[in-house]
Protein backbone atom coordinates (compact mmCIF):
# COMPACT_ATOMS: atom_id res chain seq x y z
CA UNK A 1 0.00 0.00 0.00
CA UNK A 2 1.45 3.38 -0.98
CA UNK A 3 2.67 5.46 1.92
CA UNK A 4 0.77 8.68 2.50
CA UNK A 5 3.30 11.41 3.09
CA UNK A 6 0.59 13.34 4.87
CA UNK A 7 0.75 10.80 7.65
CA UNK A 8 4.47 11.45 8.10
CA UNK A 9 4.56 15.23 7.70
CA UNK A 10 4.45 17.63 10.66
CA UNK A 11 5.06 21.33 11.18
CA UNK A 12 6.47 22.86 14.35
CA UNK A 13 3.62 25.04 15.58
CA UNK A 14 4.12 28.75 14.82
CA UNK A 15 7.55 28.13 13.34
CA UNK A 16 6.52 26.68 9.99
CA UNK A 17 9.45 24.29 10.09
CA UNK A 18 8.54 20.98 8.56
CA UNK A 19 9.59 17.47 9.46
CA UNK A 20 8.86 14.10 7.95
CA UNK A 21 8.88 11.28 10.48
CA UNK A 22 10.74 13.52 12.90
CA UNK A 23 13.48 14.55 10.48
CA UNK A 24 13.72 18.18 9.28
CA UNK A 25 12.41 18.43 5.74
CA UNK A 26 11.54 21.07 3.16
CA UNK A 27 10.08 21.14 -0.33
CA UNK A 28 12.43 22.17 -3.13
CA UNK A 29 12.19 22.03 -6.89
CA UNK A 30 14.55 20.46 -9.37
CA UNK A 31 15.97 23.83 -10.41
CA UNK A 32 17.19 24.48 -6.88
CA UNK A 33 18.33 20.90 -6.38
CA UNK A 34 20.39 20.84 -9.55
CA UNK A 35 21.80 24.32 -8.98
CA UNK A 36 22.95 23.54 -5.44
CA UNK A 37 24.54 20.25 -6.45
CA UNK A 38 26.31 22.00 -9.33
CA UNK A 39 27.53 24.73 -6.99
CA UNK A 40 29.07 22.10 -4.74
CA UNK A 41 30.74 20.38 -7.69
CA UNK A 42 32.04 23.68 -9.01
CA UNK A 43 33.40 24.57 -5.58
CA UNK A 44 35.09 21.26 -4.80
CA UNK A 45 35.71 19.70 -8.17
CA UNK A 46 33.50 17.01 -9.72
CA UNK A 47 34.89 14.03 -7.84
CA UNK A 48 35.10 15.65 -4.42
CA UNK A 49 31.75 17.31 -5.02
CA UNK A 50 30.12 13.99 -5.80
CA UNK A 51 31.65 12.49 -2.67
CA UNK A 52 30.44 15.41 -0.57
CA UNK A 53 26.93 15.00 -1.95
CA UNK A 54 27.01 11.28 -1.29
CA UNK A 55 28.11 11.55 2.34
CA UNK A 56 25.64 14.37 3.02
CA UNK A 57 22.86 12.23 1.59
CA UNK A 58 23.93 9.14 3.48
CA UNK A 59 24.01 10.98 6.79
CA UNK A 60 20.68 12.75 6.36
CA UNK A 61 19.01 9.60 5.04
CA UNK A 62 20.28 7.40 7.86
CA UNK A 63 18.78 9.75 10.42
CA UNK A 64 15.52 9.88 8.50
CA UNK A 65 15.19 6.17 7.77
CA UNK A 66 15.88 5.16 11.35
CA UNK A 67 12.80 6.95 12.63
CA UNK A 68 10.76 6.19 9.52
CA UNK A 69 11.13 2.43 9.75
CA UNK A 70 10.25 2.48 13.42
CA UNK A 71 7.13 4.53 12.72
CA UNK A 72 6.10 2.28 9.83
CA UNK A 73 6.67 -0.89 11.81
CA UNK A 74 9.30 -2.24 9.41
CA UNK A 75 11.29 -4.86 11.31
CA UNK A 76 13.11 -7.24 8.99
CA UNK A 77 15.82 -6.10 6.59
CA UNK A 78 13.56 -6.73 3.60
CA UNK A 79 10.76 -4.69 5.17
CA UNK A 80 13.11 -1.82 5.92
CA UNK A 81 14.53 -1.72 2.41
CA UNK A 82 11.05 -1.84 0.89
CA UNK A 83 9.87 0.89 3.24
CA UNK A 84 12.81 3.06 2.25
CA UNK A 85 12.16 2.59 -1.47
CA UNK A 86 8.45 3.25 -1.09
CA UNK A 87 8.91 6.52 0.77
CA UNK A 88 11.66 7.64 -1.61
CA UNK A 89 9.11 7.49 -4.41
CA UNK A 90 6.35 9.10 -2.36
CA UNK A 91 8.68 12.04 -1.69
CA UNK A 92 9.18 12.58 -5.40
CA UNK A 93 12.70 11.19 -5.74
CA UNK A 94 11.91 8.42 -8.23
CA UNK A 95 11.81 4.62 -8.15
CA UNK A 96 14.53 2.45 -6.66
CA UNK A 97 14.97 -1.25 -6.95
CA UNK A 98 17.49 -2.43 -4.38
CA UNK A 99 19.05 -5.90 -4.66
CA UNK A 100 21.67 -5.88 -1.92
CA UNK A 101 22.49 -7.15 1.54
CA UNK A 102 24.89 -6.37 4.36
CA UNK A 103 27.92 -6.83 2.14
CA UNK A 104 26.58 -4.76 -0.74
CA UNK A 105 25.01 -5.48 -4.12
CA UNK A 106 23.33 -3.27 -6.65
CA UNK A 107 20.41 -0.97 -7.16
CA UNK A 108 18.69 0.46 -10.21
CA UNK A 109 16.75 3.65 -10.50
CA UNK A 110 13.96 4.79 -12.77
CA UNK A 111 12.99 8.43 -13.08
CA UNK A 112 15.38 9.43 -10.33
CA UNK A 113 14.71 13.08 -9.60
CA UNK A 114 18.20 14.45 -10.12
CA UNK A 115 19.19 12.49 -13.20
CA UNK A 116 15.81 12.65 -14.88
CA UNK A 117 15.25 16.36 -14.28
CA UNK A 118 18.82 17.17 -15.34
CA UNK A 119 18.19 15.39 -18.61
CA UNK A 120 14.86 17.18 -19.07
CA UNK A 121 16.39 20.58 -18.36
CA UNK A 122 19.79 20.34 -20.03
CA UNK A 123 19.99 17.05 -21.92
CA UNK A 124 19.20 18.44 -25.35
CA UNK A 125 21.95 21.06 -25.17
CA UNK A 126 24.64 19.71 -22.87
CA UNK A 127 26.53 16.40 -22.70
CA UNK A 128 27.05 15.37 -19.10
CA UNK A 129 30.03 13.21 -18.22
CA UNK A 130 29.33 12.22 -14.63
CA UNK A 131 26.22 10.75 -12.99
CA UNK A 132 23.83 13.03 -11.18
CA UNK A 133 22.19 10.95 -8.48
CA UNK A 134 24.56 11.13 -5.51
CA UNK A 135 21.54 11.75 -3.31
CA UNK A 136 19.99 8.45 -4.34
CA UNK A 137 23.36 6.71 -3.85
CA UNK A 138 23.60 8.03 -0.31
CA UNK A 139 19.99 7.15 0.39
CA UNK A 140 20.45 3.54 -0.74
CA UNK A 141 23.67 3.19 1.27
CA UNK A 142 21.88 4.49 4.36
CA UNK A 143 18.94 2.15 3.77
CA UNK A 144 21.25 -0.86 3.76
CA UNK A 145 23.15 0.31 6.84
CA UNK A 146 19.88 0.66 8.68
CA UNK A 147 18.31 -2.53 7.36
CA UNK A 148 21.28 -4.68 8.41
CA UNK A 149 22.11 -2.74 11.55
CA UNK A 150 25.53 -1.75 10.24
CA UNK A 151 27.70 1.01 11.66
CA UNK A 152 27.10 4.43 10.17
CA UNK A 153 29.17 5.48 7.15
CA UNK A 154 30.27 1.97 6.31
CA UNK A 155 28.30 1.36 3.12
CA UNK A 156 29.73 2.83 -0.05
CA UNK A 157 27.75 3.41 -3.23
CA UNK A 158 28.77 4.48 -6.70
CA UNK A 159 26.47 5.36 -9.56
CA UNK A 160 27.82 3.51 -12.58
CA UNK A 161 25.13 4.49 -15.11
CA UNK A 162 22.82 7.48 -15.23
CA UNK A 163 20.07 8.77 -17.53
CA UNK A 164 21.71 12.18 -17.32
CA UNK A 165 24.73 10.71 -19.15
CA UNK A 166 22.31 9.33 -21.77
CA UNK A 167 22.17 5.79 -20.47
CA UNK A 168 18.92 3.93 -20.33
CA UNK A 169 18.56 3.78 -16.59
CA UNK A 170 20.48 4.55 -13.44
CA UNK A 171 22.58 1.87 -11.78
CA UNK A 172 24.45 1.78 -8.49
CA UNK A 173 27.15 -0.55 -7.15
CA UNK A 174 27.04 -0.93 -3.40
CA UNK A 175 29.93 -2.18 -1.36
CA UNK A 176 30.69 -2.39 2.32
CA UNK A 177 33.84 -0.47 3.12
CA UNK A 178 36.21 -0.39 6.06
CA UNK A 179 34.49 2.77 7.24
CA UNK A 180 36.34 5.84 8.46
CA UNK A 181 38.44 6.46 11.51
CA UNK A 182 36.56 9.67 12.24
CA UNK A 183 33.49 9.07 14.37
CA UNK A 184 30.29 10.05 12.57
CA UNK A 185 28.74 13.37 13.48
CA UNK A 186 25.79 13.28 15.85
CA UNK A 187 22.54 13.26 13.83
CA UNK A 188 20.43 16.40 13.69
CA UNK A 189 16.82 15.53 14.26
CA UNK A 190 13.79 17.68 14.93
CA UNK A 191 14.19 17.20 18.68
CA UNK A 192 17.75 18.53 18.45
CA UNK A 193 16.48 21.67 16.76
CA UNK A 194 13.59 22.44 19.08
CA UNK A 195 15.82 23.39 21.98
CA UNK A 196 17.36 26.16 19.86
CA UNK A 197 14.04 27.77 18.94
CA UNK A 198 13.32 31.36 19.96
CA UNK A 199 9.88 32.78 20.67
CA UNK A 200 7.94 33.31 17.48
CA UNK A 201 6.21 36.53 16.42
CA UNK A 202 3.90 38.04 13.84
CA UNK A 203 4.60 40.51 11.08
CA UNK A 204 2.58 42.73 8.80
CA UNK A 205 -0.28 41.19 6.80
CA UNK A 206 -0.03 38.27 9.20
CA UNK A 207 -3.62 37.14 8.80
CA UNK A 208 -3.36 37.07 5.02
CA UNK A 209 0.02 35.33 4.99
CA UNK A 210 -1.00 32.75 7.58
CA UNK A 211 -4.26 32.05 5.78
CA UNK A 212 -2.59 31.48 2.42
CA UNK A 213 0.14 29.34 4.00
CA UNK A 214 -2.54 27.18 5.58
CA UNK A 215 -4.31 26.78 2.25
CA UNK A 216 -1.09 25.79 0.52
CA UNK A 217 -0.23 23.30 3.24
CA UNK A 218 -3.64 21.70 2.82
CA UNK A 219 -3.07 21.49 -0.91
CA UNK A 220 0.42 19.96 -0.59
CA UNK A 221 -0.79 17.43 1.96
CA UNK A 222 -2.32 15.52 -0.92
CA UNK A 223 0.76 15.66 -3.10
CA UNK A 224 2.78 12.50 -3.51
CA UNK A 225 4.94 10.82 -6.12
CA UNK A 226 3.11 9.56 -9.21
CA UNK A 227 3.63 6.16 -10.81
CA UNK A 228 7.15 7.26 -11.74
CA UNK A 229 7.89 8.39 -8.19
CA UNK A 230 7.98 12.01 -9.33
CA UNK A 231 5.96 15.01 -8.18
CA UNK A 232 5.02 17.24 -11.07
CA UNK A 233 3.41 20.46 -9.83
CA UNK A 234 3.42 24.19 -10.53
CA UNK A 235 5.48 23.67 -13.65
CA UNK A 236 8.40 22.06 -11.81
CA UNK A 237 9.44 18.73 -10.35
CA UNK A 238 9.07 19.02 -6.59
CA UNK A 239 10.73 16.94 -3.91
CA UNK A 240 10.02 16.62 -0.27
CA UNK A 241 13.67 16.64 0.73
CA UNK A 242 15.85 16.33 3.78
CA UNK A 243 16.96 19.69 5.15
CA UNK A 244 20.01 17.97 6.61
CA UNK A 245 21.21 17.14 3.10
CA UNK A 246 21.09 20.74 1.95
CA UNK A 247 22.54 22.10 5.16
CA UNK A 248 25.41 19.64 5.41
CA UNK A 249 26.31 20.30 1.77
CA UNK A 250 26.26 24.04 2.17
CA UNK A 251 28.06 24.35 5.48
CA UNK A 252 30.63 21.62 4.83
CA UNK A 253 31.70 23.42 1.66
CA UNK A 254 31.87 26.75 3.48
CA UNK A 255 33.95 25.14 6.24
CA UNK A 256 36.34 23.65 3.70
CA UNK A 257 36.74 27.03 2.02
CA UNK A 258 37.32 28.77 5.35
CA UNK A 259 40.21 26.39 5.93
CA UNK A 260 41.67 26.04 2.45
CA UNK A 261 40.46 28.91 0.30
CA UNK A 262 39.17 31.81 2.38
CA UNK A 263 39.65 34.40 -0.36
CA UNK A 264 37.06 32.65 -2.49
CA UNK A 265 34.38 32.58 0.18
CA UNK A 266 32.55 35.68 -1.14
CA UNK A 267 32.14 34.01 -4.53
CA UNK A 268 30.93 30.80 -2.93
CA UNK A 269 28.49 32.68 -0.74
CA UNK A 270 27.10 34.54 -3.75
CA UNK A 271 26.44 31.22 -5.47
CA UNK A 272 24.70 29.85 -2.41
CA UNK A 273 22.56 33.00 -2.36
CA UNK A 274 21.82 32.48 -6.03
CA UNK A 275 20.26 29.14 -5.15
CA UNK A 276 17.62 31.25 -3.42
CA UNK A 277 17.07 33.22 -6.63
CA UNK A 278 16.63 30.00 -8.56
CA UNK A 279 14.10 28.58 -6.10
CA UNK A 280 11.98 31.71 -5.79
CA UNK A 281 11.94 32.39 -9.51
CA UNK A 282 10.96 28.88 -10.54
CA UNK A 283 8.95 27.49 -7.64
CA UNK A 284 7.44 30.59 -6.07
CA UNK A 285 6.90 32.04 -9.53
CA UNK A 286 5.27 28.84 -10.68
CA UNK A 287 2.96 28.75 -7.68
CA UNK A 288 1.98 32.42 -8.00
CA UNK A 289 1.26 31.97 -11.70
CA UNK A 290 -0.74 28.75 -11.22
CA UNK A 291 -4.49 28.28 -11.58
CA UNK A 292 -4.45 26.85 -8.06
CA UNK A 293 -3.25 30.22 -6.77
CA UNK A 294 -5.79 32.05 -8.86
CA UNK A 295 -8.53 29.83 -7.46
CA UNK A 296 -7.36 30.34 -3.89
CA UNK A 297 -6.35 34.01 -3.90
CA UNK A 298 -7.70 35.51 -7.11
CA UNK A 299 -6.12 37.30 -10.07
CA UNK A 300 -3.04 39.43 -9.53
CA UNK A 301 -3.61 43.17 -9.19
CA UNK A 302 -0.15 44.26 -10.32
CA UNK A 303 0.56 45.65 -6.85
CA UNK A 304 3.88 44.32 -5.43
CA UNK A 305 2.73 43.95 -1.82
CA UNK A 306 0.42 40.97 -2.38
CA UNK A 307 3.25 39.25 -4.26
CA UNK A 308 5.60 39.78 -1.32
CA UNK A 309 2.98 38.50 1.12
CA UNK A 310 2.25 35.56 -1.15
CA UNK A 311 5.90 34.63 -1.32
CA UNK A 312 6.23 34.64 2.45
CA UNK A 313 3.19 32.38 2.68
CA UNK A 314 4.77 30.03 0.16
CA UNK A 315 8.01 29.96 2.16
CA UNK A 316 6.07 28.91 5.25
CA UNK A 317 4.12 26.23 3.43
CA UNK A 318 7.32 24.77 1.97
CA UNK A 319 8.77 24.40 5.47
CA UNK A 320 11.43 27.12 5.25
CA UNK A 321 10.41 28.75 8.53
CA UNK A 322 8.08 31.42 9.85
CA UNK A 323 9.13 34.16 7.41
CA UNK A 324 7.37 37.42 8.33
CA UNK A 325 6.98 40.79 6.68
CA UNK A 326 8.62 43.31 8.97
CA UNK A 327 8.77 46.27 6.58
CA UNK A 328 7.84 46.94 3.00
CA UNK A 329 8.08 50.16 1.06
CA UNK A 330 7.45 49.47 -2.64
CA UNK A 331 10.41 50.17 -4.90
CA UNK A 332 12.58 50.93 -1.89
CA UNK A 333 12.91 48.41 0.90
CA UNK A 334 11.84 44.97 2.07
CA UNK A 335 12.68 43.53 5.48
CA UNK A 336 12.00 39.88 6.21
CA UNK A 337 12.32 38.44 9.69
CA UNK A 338 12.04 34.91 11.04
CA UNK A 339 12.40 33.41 14.51
CA UNK A 340 14.34 30.59 12.86
CA UNK A 341 14.94 29.18 9.41
CA UNK A 342 15.79 25.68 8.33
CA UNK A 343 19.33 26.92 7.85
CA UNK A 344 19.90 28.74 11.14
CA UNK A 345 18.48 26.04 13.31
CA UNK A 346 20.67 23.38 11.73
CA UNK A 347 23.77 25.54 12.04
CA UNK A 348 23.16 26.12 15.74
CA UNK A 349 22.59 22.43 16.41
CA UNK A 350 25.55 21.18 14.39
CA UNK A 351 28.15 23.97 14.54
CA UNK A 352 27.20 26.21 17.43
CA UNK A 353 27.02 29.98 17.23
CA UNK A 354 27.87 31.54 13.86
CA UNK A 355 30.21 34.49 13.52
CA UNK A 356 28.44 36.06 10.55
CA UNK A 357 25.05 35.95 8.86
CA UNK A 358 25.10 32.66 6.94
CA UNK A 359 21.51 31.95 5.98
CA UNK A 360 22.32 32.11 2.30
CA UNK A 361 19.04 30.73 1.06
CA UNK A 362 17.06 33.27 3.12
CA UNK A 363 19.26 36.07 1.76
CA UNK A 364 18.95 35.07 -1.87
CA UNK A 365 15.29 34.21 -1.66
CA UNK A 366 14.41 37.57 -0.10
CA UNK A 367 16.22 39.44 -2.83
CA UNK A 368 14.46 37.34 -5.44
CA UNK A 369 11.09 38.08 -3.82
CA UNK A 370 11.74 41.80 -4.25
CA UNK A 371 12.71 41.21 -7.87
CA UNK A 372 9.63 39.15 -8.65
CA UNK A 373 7.30 41.58 -6.90
CA UNK A 374 8.57 44.58 -8.86
CA UNK A 375 9.85 43.30 -12.20
CA UNK A 376 7.36 40.62 -13.25
CA UNK A 377 4.21 41.79 -15.05
CA UNK A 378 1.77 39.81 -12.98
CA UNK A 379 -1.38 41.07 -14.71
CA UNK A 380 -0.03 39.61 -17.98
CA UNK A 381 0.63 36.12 -16.53
CA UNK A 382 4.42 35.96 -16.96
CA UNK A 383 6.12 32.83 -18.23
CA UNK A 384 9.05 31.77 -16.07
CA UNK A 385 11.49 30.92 -18.79
CA UNK A 386 15.26 30.74 -18.63
CA UNK A 387 15.34 33.91 -20.72
CA UNK A 388 13.24 35.74 -18.16
CA UNK A 389 15.46 34.45 -15.34
CA UNK A 390 18.56 35.65 -17.15
CA UNK A 391 16.96 39.06 -17.73
CA UNK A 392 16.11 39.42 -14.04
CA UNK A 393 19.21 37.97 -12.44
CA UNK A 394 22.04 37.84 -14.94
CA UNK A 395 21.70 41.02 -16.95
CA UNK A 396 24.40 42.95 -15.07
CA UNK A 397 24.19 44.57 -11.63
CA UNK A 398 20.95 43.78 -9.91
CA UNK A 399 18.68 46.71 -9.01
CA UNK A 400 18.29 45.28 -5.51
CA UNK A 401 20.86 44.30 -2.88
CA UNK A 402 20.49 42.21 0.25
CA UNK A 403 22.19 42.25 3.61
CA UNK A 404 21.65 39.91 6.53
CA UNK A 405 21.47 42.17 9.57
CA UNK A 406 20.64 39.57 12.23
CA UNK A 407 20.71 35.82 12.57
CA UNK A 408 19.43 33.39 15.14
CA UNK A 409 22.52 31.33 14.22
CA UNK A 410 24.55 34.19 15.69
CA UNK A 411 22.47 34.18 18.86
CA UNK A 412 20.17 37.05 17.89
CA UNK A 413 16.49 36.87 18.83
CA UNK A 414 15.50 36.70 15.15
CA UNK A 415 16.98 36.38 11.70
CA UNK A 416 16.60 39.43 9.51
CA UNK A 417 17.47 40.30 5.94
CA UNK A 418 17.14 43.78 4.48
CA UNK A 419 16.62 44.15 0.75
CA UNK A 420 17.07 47.65 -0.61
CA UNK A 421 16.71 49.15 -4.05
CA UNK A 422 19.96 50.37 -5.53
CA UNK A 423 19.43 53.97 -6.64
Amino acid at each position, binding site marked *: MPTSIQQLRTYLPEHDLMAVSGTPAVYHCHHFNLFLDQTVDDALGEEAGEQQRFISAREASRTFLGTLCTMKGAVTPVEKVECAAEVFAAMGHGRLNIAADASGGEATGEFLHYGFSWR*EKYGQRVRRRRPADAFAAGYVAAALELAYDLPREIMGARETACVATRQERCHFDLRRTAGTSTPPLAPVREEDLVKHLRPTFKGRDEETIAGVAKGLREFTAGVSGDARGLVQAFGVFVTMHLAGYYNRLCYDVITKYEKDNPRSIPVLESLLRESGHVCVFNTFGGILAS*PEWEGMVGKHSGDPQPIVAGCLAIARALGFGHWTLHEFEPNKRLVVRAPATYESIYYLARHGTATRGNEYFLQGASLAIAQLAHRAKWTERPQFTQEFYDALFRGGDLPWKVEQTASTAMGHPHSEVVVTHVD
Partner: protein
Amino acid sequence: MSTEVTLRREQACFRDLNWDVQLARAPRSWADLRSALAAGGWSGWPGDSPSLWCIERPDGHQLVVVPRTGRIQLRLHYTSHLEDRAELAERIAQQLARAADRA
Protein backbone atom coordinates in the same frame (compact mmCIF):
# COMPACT_ATOMS: atom_id res chain seq x y z
CA MET B 1 -22.22 29.51 -33.48
CA SER B 2 -19.48 27.33 -32.06
CA THR B 3 -17.17 28.65 -29.38
CA GLU B 4 -13.73 29.42 -30.65
CA VAL B 5 -10.89 28.28 -28.50
CA THR B 6 -7.31 29.52 -28.31
CA LEU B 7 -4.52 27.30 -27.07
CA ARG B 8 -1.22 28.55 -25.71
CA ARG B 9 1.64 26.39 -24.59
CA GLU B 10 2.37 27.16 -20.91
CA GLN B 11 5.91 27.43 -19.68
CA ALA B 12 6.73 24.41 -17.56
CA CYS B 13 9.56 22.00 -17.20
CA PHE B 14 7.55 19.26 -18.88
CA ARG B 15 7.59 19.61 -22.61
CA ASP B 16 4.20 20.52 -24.08
CA LEU B 17 2.22 19.03 -21.19
CA ASN B 18 0.60 22.21 -19.86
CA TRP B 19 -1.65 24.39 -22.04
CA ASP B 20 -3.65 27.52 -21.40
CA VAL B 21 -7.10 27.23 -22.95
CA GLN B 22 -9.09 30.36 -23.70
CA LEU B 23 -12.71 30.14 -24.75
CA ALA B 24 -13.77 33.06 -26.93
CA ARG B 25 -17.04 33.17 -25.01
CA ALA B 26 -17.57 32.14 -21.42
CA PRO B 27 -20.16 29.37 -20.99
CA ARG B 28 -23.65 30.57 -20.13
CA SER B 29 -23.58 28.29 -17.12
CA TRP B 30 -20.42 26.92 -15.57
CA ALA B 31 -22.52 24.38 -13.69
CA ASP B 32 -23.93 23.12 -16.99
CA LEU B 33 -20.44 22.98 -18.46
CA ARG B 34 -19.35 20.87 -15.52
CA SER B 35 -22.28 18.52 -16.09
CA ALA B 36 -21.47 18.29 -19.79
CA LEU B 37 -17.87 17.44 -19.01
CA ALA B 38 -18.98 14.83 -16.50
CA ALA B 39 -21.16 13.27 -19.18
CA GLY B 40 -18.05 13.19 -21.37
CA GLY B 41 -16.14 11.18 -18.76
CA TRP B 42 -14.44 13.91 -16.75
CA SER B 43 -14.47 13.41 -12.98
CA GLY B 44 -12.97 15.19 -9.98
CA TRP B 45 -9.67 14.37 -8.32
CA PRO B 46 -8.32 15.48 -4.90
CA GLY B 47 -8.40 19.26 -4.69
CA ASP B 48 -11.59 19.54 -6.73
CA SER B 49 -13.90 22.22 -5.37
CA PRO B 50 -16.51 24.67 -6.69
CA SER B 51 -13.89 27.46 -6.84
CA LEU B 52 -11.17 25.30 -8.42
CA TRP B 53 -12.16 22.41 -10.65
CA CYS B 54 -9.60 19.66 -10.73
CA ILE B 55 -11.00 17.11 -13.15
CA GLU B 56 -9.56 14.37 -15.25
CA ARG B 57 -10.47 11.85 -17.92
CA PRO B 58 -9.91 8.12 -17.50
CA ASP B 59 -6.81 8.41 -19.71
CA GLY B 60 -5.28 10.79 -17.17
CA HIS B 61 -5.50 14.13 -18.97
CA GLN B 62 -6.58 16.86 -16.59
CA LEU B 63 -8.30 20.23 -16.59
CA VAL B 64 -7.83 22.81 -13.85
CA VAL B 65 -10.54 25.46 -14.09
CA VAL B 66 -11.15 28.63 -12.09
CA PRO B 67 -14.81 29.43 -12.89
CA ARG B 68 -14.69 32.80 -11.18
CA THR B 69 -12.01 34.12 -13.57
CA GLY B 70 -12.55 31.81 -16.53
CA ARG B 71 -9.01 30.47 -16.43
CA ILE B 72 -8.56 26.99 -17.85
CA GLN B 73 -5.38 24.93 -17.86
CA LEU B 74 -5.12 21.63 -19.67
CA ARG B 75 -2.55 19.17 -18.30
CA LEU B 76 -1.77 16.26 -20.56
CA HIS B 77 -0.69 13.03 -18.93
CA TYR B 78 3.06 12.54 -18.96
CA THR B 79 2.76 9.24 -20.82
CA SER B 80 1.50 10.99 -23.96
CA HIS B 81 4.07 10.94 -26.74
CA LEU B 82 5.90 14.21 -27.24
CA GLU B 83 5.15 14.39 -30.95
CA ASP B 84 1.43 13.93 -30.32
CA ARG B 85 0.97 16.46 -27.55
CA ALA B 86 0.09 19.56 -29.55
CA GLU B 87 -2.54 17.71 -31.57
CA LEU B 88 -3.91 16.02 -28.45
CA ALA B 89 -4.21 19.36 -26.70
CA GLU B 90 -6.08 20.76 -29.70
CA ARG B 91 -8.53 17.84 -29.70
CA ILE B 92 -9.28 18.13 -26.00
CA ALA B 93 -9.65 21.89 -26.26
CA GLN B 94 -12.19 21.41 -29.04
CA GLN B 95 -14.05 18.90 -26.88
CA LEU B 96 -14.14 21.50 -24.15
CA ALA B 97 -15.37 24.15 -26.55
CA ARG B 98 -18.20 21.90 -27.76
CA ALA B 99 -19.18 21.19 -24.16
CA ALA B 100 -19.15 24.95 -23.48
CA ASP B 101 -21.45 25.50 -26.44
CA ARG B 102 -23.96 23.07 -25.00
CA ALA B 103 -23.78 24.60 -21.52
